[in-house]
């Protein structure tokens, strides 16, 4: 990203991602203090996601710690990836949370490491996507989510927050795999439409 090479003051309050990118550059250069800034901005959101996925405050703390250490270790790789720092960081949190959840489940297929022991170096960094709702707040997103068909919302929630694979969702709901796949696809597209077309504001009177 070319932001790294900008001369002069890098932080412009108008663009939170500029502050984030500057912190990532400092982290990549070994300045650990930059991690504090990122935690200050995203620690609560990270913890909230971890609690939502794991349902366990102490496991959620482990998840957040691993995720921020992963951000630090992966900082030098961030510069060449797409997406905002926030989306990337929260994707790492989600990835770690689901990983913890699956390890706890006896039937889950574990990654190949000896005796299922977590290997610290196995921290893989997920893709970062553009955020279609970057400027929307939680309530607006929640309203959009409430406005899509319940069966699609259920599929999205079981996958993203429940940590279930599409096969496990089909099994749990007693549905053909194809139905689950299409509910996930339609759910994502419906949510995208609610989030983009004029925002979800029209739905404010709902409930």
């Amino acid at each position, binding site marked *: 990203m070319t932001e790294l090479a900008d001369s002069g003051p890098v932080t412009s309050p108008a663009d939170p991602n500029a502050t984030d990118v500057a912190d990532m550059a400092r982290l990549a250069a070994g300045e650990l203090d930059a991690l504090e800034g990122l935690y200050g901005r995203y620690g609560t959101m990270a913890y909230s996601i971890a609690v939502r996925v794991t349902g366990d405050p102490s496991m959620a703390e482990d998840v957040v710690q691993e995720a921020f250490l992963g951000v630090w270790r992966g900082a030098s790789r961030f510069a060449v990836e797409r997406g905002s720092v926030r989306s990337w960081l929260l994707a790492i949190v989600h990835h770690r949370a689901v990983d913890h959840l699956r390890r706890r489940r006896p039937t889950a297929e574990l990654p190949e490491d000896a005796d299922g022991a977590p290997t610290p170096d196995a921290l893989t960094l997920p893709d970062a*996507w553009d955020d279609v709702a970057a400027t929307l707040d939680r309530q607006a997103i929640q309203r959009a989510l409430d406005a899509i068909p319940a069966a699609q919302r259920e599929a999205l929630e079981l*996958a993203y927050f429940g940590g279930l694979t599409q096969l496990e969702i089909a099994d749990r709901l007693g549905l053909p795999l194809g139905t689950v796949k299409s509910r996930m696809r339609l759910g994502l597209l419906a949510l*995208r439409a609610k989030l983009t077309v004029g925002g979800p504001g029209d739905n404010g009177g709902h409930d």
Partner: protein
Amino acid sequence: MGAMTDPRPGGLTCAEAMELAPAYVLGALEPAELATVRAHLQECPEAHPALAELGSVVPALARSVPITAPAPDLGARIMAAARAEAARAASVAALERPPLGDASHLTEAVPRRGPNGDARPEPERRPFAIVQLLRAPRWAAVAAVLVVTVLGVWGLQLQGTVAGLTAYRDGVTAVVDAAAAPGARLAVLRAAGGPSGLAAVSSSGLTLVVRDLAPTSGRQVYEAWLIGSDGQPLPAGSFGVGGDGIGRLVARMPVEEAGVVVALTREPGPGATTPSLPVLIQGKATGA
């Protein structure tokens, strides 16, 4: 890759891969399916806009959760863990390098002048890792020593890896520092599946770090070139590479235009005036 286009990159057609896209962006694929989708995306030349369309909804899902405040000291615990890990990496690197060993990774004036052609007094050639430890708070040093005893059994391979990572991170630090100079530009150096690195170009010279380079032997060197708008490659300096695959260069030279292309070749010896092809990696210096 190559002239023939594989209709099933990674074992999947694009249609098959995109059928798995919703579960892929949500993290809901079985491990084997995930591996095939990743392989497809890596090998397939197509752009897959449907994937980005579905994926762009996922950050919103992440931000839809109810807010739960973490314990007030969680941030401090995370910072302590990160500092302990940094100290550990530094101490492992210190173990790997005896105090008077090859210090080429820390001497900044890498464009070498010849064995004794330099009249400068020999500075203290402490391995950088020890310098880092001395700068760290005392508790960190103590913790590092404790960890070192535990790590003693981990074996040479890990030590080499960590030392290499630390050397690379040090190189990145130097480049980022150089890129902070007024008017400086940053170049990302890349080649498909090959070495990668970063370079900063300013009016006073070039600073670069590259990893995953094959070690040099004999008189072999890697030579950095600056190619301006006239297309003429100017040699900027050379360096050797050891077993860790990390190469660093700090070349002081006047650079008239900042928007140059930085390129790297391997040469049979120092002092090349025209690059021996192929160019291993290159990148254009960009910035404000």
